């Protein structure tokens, strides 16, 4: 279960996507997510799916790993699709039996929603697969830096984010270790009813909290020892620079949006008002 967590996972590679500037990647991801919701018919939606697939192929991340990031959202996708099918009205009626009414609009909305969510998750996981957590937080810090005018401590927030991401694998290891230690003392974590299972977690959660707090204190001391004060004036070892490929990728996305607008206009909307 714990091994399914894909947040902050990085897949080492040398593709164009890996080499793109992290700031640009974040902007492009946001633009892409917005443009998914612009699609009004199957042609433009198809174009988005095609683009998503191309991104995966270009990145060199194995399909298996991409599928793993979709697995946790399978339930949400199924659930929203079912609700859409049964509750959205309009268009031609397909089934009209007692309390069940299914219309073309319902089916289309369900299909659109499912595709959109999957594309959205795949593209955002491509962002984390091709960008190291440090690059990602550096980029977020840079993108948020205009907020400094409003006295928001952007660099401190970025440091907090870096640390949080840094400790995900450590905590996963820790949970594994503590679970095994308690299992060795006969703790039964897999059987019993709901209440029993919750109770069985106490021997894992208490040591986890204790060691997390200890770790946090140690980390703070270590940062103090290296004279970390945060705030303004801190410079970076690796400066981020935009290259030609970053602008080229921006251009590709703009062409994609133009394509969607044209397809939307040319084929019209699939949903009937």
């Amino acid at each position, binding site marked *: 279960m714990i091994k399914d967590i894909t947040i902050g996972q990085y897949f080492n590679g040398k593709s164009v996507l890996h080499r793109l500037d992290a700031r640009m990647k974040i902007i492009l991801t946001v633009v892409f997510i917005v443009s998914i919701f612009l699609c009004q018919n199957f042609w433009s939606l198809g174009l988005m799916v095609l683009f998503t697939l191309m991104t995966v192929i270009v990145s060199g991340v194995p399909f298996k790993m991409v599928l793993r990031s979709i697995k946790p959202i399978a339930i949400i996708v199924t659930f929203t699709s079912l609700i859409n099918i049964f509750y959205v009205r309009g268009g031609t009626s397909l089934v009209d039996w007692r309390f069940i009414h299914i219309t073309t609009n319902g089916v289309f909305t369900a299909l659109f929603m499912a595709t959109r969510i999957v594309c959205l998750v795949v593209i955002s996981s491509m962002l984390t697969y091709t960008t190291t957590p440090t690059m990602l937080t550096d980029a977020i810090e840079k993108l948020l830096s205009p907020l400094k005018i409003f006295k928001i401590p952007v660099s401190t927030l970025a440091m907090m984010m870096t640390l949080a991401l840094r400790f995900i694998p450590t905590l996963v290891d820790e949970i594994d*270790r*503590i679970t*095994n*230690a*308690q*299992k*060795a*003392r*006969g*703790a*039964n974590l897999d059987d019993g009813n709901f209440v029993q299972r919750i109770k069985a977690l*106490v*021997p*894992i959660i*208490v*040591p986890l909290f*204790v*060691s997390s707090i200890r770790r946090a204190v140690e980390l703070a001391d270590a940062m103090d020892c290296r004279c970390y004060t945060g705030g303004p004036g801190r410079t970076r070892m690796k400066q981020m620079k935009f290259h030609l490929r970053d602008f080229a990728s921006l251009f590709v996305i703009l062409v994609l949006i133009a394509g969607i607008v044209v397809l939307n206009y040319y084929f019209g909307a699939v949903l009937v008002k």
Partner: protein
Amino acid sequence: MPVLSMKGVTHLYNKGTPSQSKAIDNINLDIEEGELVGIIGHTGSGKSTLVQHFNGILKPESGKIFVDGTDIWSSKKATREARFKVGLCFQYPEYQLFEETVYKDISFGPKNMGLNEEEIQKRVLLAAKYVGLQQELLEKSPFDLSGGEKRRAAIAGVIAMQPKVLILDEPTAGLDPVGRDKILDMIKAYREKTGSTVLLVSHSMEDVAKIATKVLVMNDAHIEMYGTVDEVYSHSEKLREIGLNIPQVSKVFEILNKKGLNLGSAYTVEKAAELILSKGGAAV
């Protein structure tokens, strides 16, 4: 019949990913009842992985594991029984403490076995005695104990289950020399009193030499050697080849022997002193 036995056990880490690796490879091993086996090997040689198979914490990729002649993966019941028959104390066990008092924490294992209050109390007090925890400490919070006391309280938590086989993974790691000797003496005394089998994972050849009856050397996912202390430690060349250092005192003896003193071999300071006193005088 050996109390622990492995037949062709292989374990893979990160199966199905690019970083897949064999932690232990086709291990065949029999451990007889009553032995105190020291398991040594450098970091990453597979020692910890090996011992975590005996109580079913890790499931092997292939091969069979027998505890007391029962295949521990043959049924759910057998796996659970193995948990109690083989008490495994992990590295840095003090991080598993969670209860309000030391007493409650030590009784966690016996409670999971479904024993009655009276039996639990008996076992907790006995376990505390084995590890040398004073009675008044039992009512304290485990988080108020010193590092060494925490370690011993955690070990007591495993001993209280009264397992047939006790496995300790690096029980002396990170302790000062006094704390280290205390733990080693405790293990030795525990085995002598209860007659149970003990497996001691360590990378300190000195520690193992002090108390073990047999030594198992792991190297690169394989068993390199398995025999009595004398047998294994006499292969000092081979041990050095795989990155293990024989005890300091043995090195001194090797040099003395080479110089023609013919003192025999010693692995602990006590044995060395004994040898020098008995043979040394005649040789010089």
